[in-house]
């Protein structure tokens, strides 16, 4: 599974990185972010691309699992 580590970055960087990674259209990705805006924005982007998003939060960091719906 492709993992995109966008921790420490602010918008629009995490979305741009996710977008680039998702060019190869795999079934599953994981994106790591550490702020609310990035979590929301990556979620919106993934859903827009037809992926289901599952979010796990630990200590202010978010792990987003994107699965092709």
């Amino acid at each position, binding site marked *: 599974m492709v993992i995109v580590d966008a921790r420490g970055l*602010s*918008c*629009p960087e995490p*979305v*741009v990185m996710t*977008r680039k990674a998702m060019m190869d259209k795999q079934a599953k990705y994981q994106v790591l972010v550490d*702020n*609310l*805006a990035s979590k*929301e*924005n*990556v*979620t*919106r*982007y993934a859903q*827009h691309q037809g992926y289901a998003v599952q979010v796990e939060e630990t200590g202010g960091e978010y792990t987003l699992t994107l699965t092709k719906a």
Partner: protein
Amino acid sequence: METEVKLTKLASCAGCGAKVGAGTLARMLDGFETHYDPRLIVGYDKSDDASVYVITDEVALVQTTDFFPPIVDDPYLFGQIAAANALSDVYAMGGEPRTALNIMCLPESMDKHTVHEILRGGYAKAYEAGAIITGGHTIHGAEPIYGLAVAGFVHPDKVLTNSGARPGDVLLLTKPLGVGVITTAAKADLVEAPVLERIYRQMATLNKAARDVLVNYPVHSCTDVTGFALLGHSFEMAQGSGCTLHIRAHAVPFHPEALELARMGFIPAGAYRNREYAQAGVQVSGKVEQALEDLFYDPQTSGGLLAAVPEECAEECLQQLLAAGVEAARIGYVTEQQDAAVCLEE
């Protein structure tokens, strides 16, 4: 739009998106001792656009300041936008700017030409507004900042506060929304040049023409829609006025490109801060797409005016705004206070 320095690369967050959230700001300003002066008629509760101090029966002083890091790479344009944004608070109070002071912060490495261009932009807008820049203050710092402290005048009986809306009023909005979303997407090179040109022109446009029309009507309340976005500023107007503002989501003008970019998650962090601040007071009824709601929380750099106008003159006022070349629309209405401060309707 190529310049020697990429100004926006020096900025950690762009334009009005850099504004501290309204909730945070209220907490920071809480509990200070202040003098009471009967001549200060706006300014105690800290949530209006500018303060207003009565000098004579016919003249009141309007004071405000606004500054931010670069939102565009062209220094002349940045200067114009920052100045238009700072001057806007005077127009939002129904006043006319008269004098202004430059507020500037520059990295030591910044070349003289860039600095000169930023200031030239500021002077150009001040001139257009009829205001004179009489000085200012410049310091060194890592991140460039530019803006103005502005003084203007208004007749004490004709002050437009953000707390005077009344049931039955019609809400008019000038300047389409979506500036924050589009400038965020522009950082990812996802916006076509003509679209950027359009929003740059809009941000550099003074709210003077809109103000000059509005003061001819018995407008009850007015504010400029900037960092706290349409819903944040509507929330403040509703709370200040003790009314409920109803906004018809599909009547609100926005740049069409912004909706798709919001769907793709190109939303500035400030929009989420605005949502956090205002959403407890906002009730959504009917079908409003999430991305559209996101646009209503989008911080607007040098945004337009939101005015509460009596129903009987609203249509004529709107027509006069349009005739003056102002992009304007009727976006909602005001009622007695209901459960929510703001109702966002389908």
